[in-house]
């Protein structure tokens, strides 16, 4: 977007050691997630093999430790929570958005006590703060 992005792009394109990111169509239809897991499994197995020459019992322990993590990941995939909501919730409760949140909550309290106003403006400020704080984090999570 900025001029510096363009310059770094040009430098990256000109340097011969830069990486080319052309994603090949994955043969595995399930996607990148399981593929990464299998890769990490292979890696841990090789590490385990090298260790097991000295101490076989430790390697087994590590393997048993790995298994519950994988199960957790699968559970997360089943639930599938939107990262935007979680990130914005974090931002809304962060110190950065504390003033906006404070104003919004005060307004909500006033309305609940019978004040004839709406909290749209306060809501706007809070939402603006939360989305702005979450935007770069969200883009690093999304594909």
């Amino acid at each position, binding site marked *: 977007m900025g001029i510096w992005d363009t310059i770094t792009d040009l430098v990256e394109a000109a340097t011969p050691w830069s990486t080319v990111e052309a994603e090949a169509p994955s043969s595995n239809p399930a996607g990148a997630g399981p593929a990464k897991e299998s890769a990490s499994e292979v890696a841990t197995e090789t590490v385990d093999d090298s260790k097991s020459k000295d101490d076989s019992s430790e390697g087994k322990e590590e393997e048993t430790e790995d298994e519950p993590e994988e199960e957790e990941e699968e559970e997360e995939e089943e639930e599938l929570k939107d990262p935007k909501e979680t990130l914005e919730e974090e931002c809304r409760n962060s110190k950065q958005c504390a003033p906006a949140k404070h104003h919004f909550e005060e307004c909500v309290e006033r309305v609940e006590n019978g004040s004839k106003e709406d909290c749209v403006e306060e809501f706007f400020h809070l939402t603006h703060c939360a989305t702005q704080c979450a935007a770069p984090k969200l883009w690093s999570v999304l*594909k």
Partner: protein
Amino acid sequence: MLARSCLRSTRAFAGARNGAINVSKRAASSSSGPNPEASPLRLNIAAAASTAVAVGSIAWYYHLYGPTAHAMTPAEEGLHPTQYPWVHQQFLKSFDHQALRRGFQVYREVCAACHSLSRVPYRALVGQVLTVDEAKALAEENEYDTEPNDQGDIEKRPGKLSDYMPAPYKNDEAARAANNGALPPDLSLIVKARHGGCNYIFSLLTGYPDEPPAGAHVQSGLNFNPYFPGTGIAMARVLFDELVEYEDGTPATTSQMAKDVTEFLNWAAEPEMDDRKRTGLKVLVVTSVLFALSVYVKRYKWAWLKSRKIAYDPPKAENQHHRL
């Protein structure tokens, strides 16, 4: 200017030095000139009066018409969308065509129920979003009118690559009737047609709060969305987690689907973007080469002038003496 003021000051000094002579001269020559003994107030009366009139007229205008009335509340304006770091909007980045493919899937399975994409033919998708065979198969799913046959009847034929995407409704009136009076806009150019572009579309799709803020008035049949001007939008939230199942296994969260479909809509609005950026880089490359060439040519052409040497041989002193 300086010279003139200097002259004047000398004249003033001269007047001061022999004032008596001057006064007698003036009295003898004329009596129509301004009185030098006038008070400073009388001298400045015109300036003061004109200034008073100027200030008064401004005040009168302000009294009559007053300040501009900005009768616009934040709710009517709508929340301005946050700037998201879109990769495809950087100067030298192309569209992520896997994202376009996912976005087209979202459009087809979700948006196409109400929104047309009437300016995009199937042939535009070939090589960008779909392969030729996929695009042909997709086109053949719909029926289009043929040319009139020998009897003058118009028959139906399966779609071809050159056909445009079919609209969900026959016309705008049908669309309004089916949607409670609200017209779902055509999405072909929607990214260009809205302030904020991609940011607005993404924010609108993901920005539906669980419940409107306290005290906000939402008309029946409308939904609260802070990004829509007026905050009451007829379109309800449509994107929910795992609404579509991506063929490449990407987790279909709400924000992921919104991001993909926004990028797809941006592609639909400016399908020439990738080529445009490449052409722009070509222009920069060619221009820089030509500039370098012009620098060399200039130096070559000016070489004789720049490298010349003007020598001055002074006549020798001995010869001069001899001449004298």
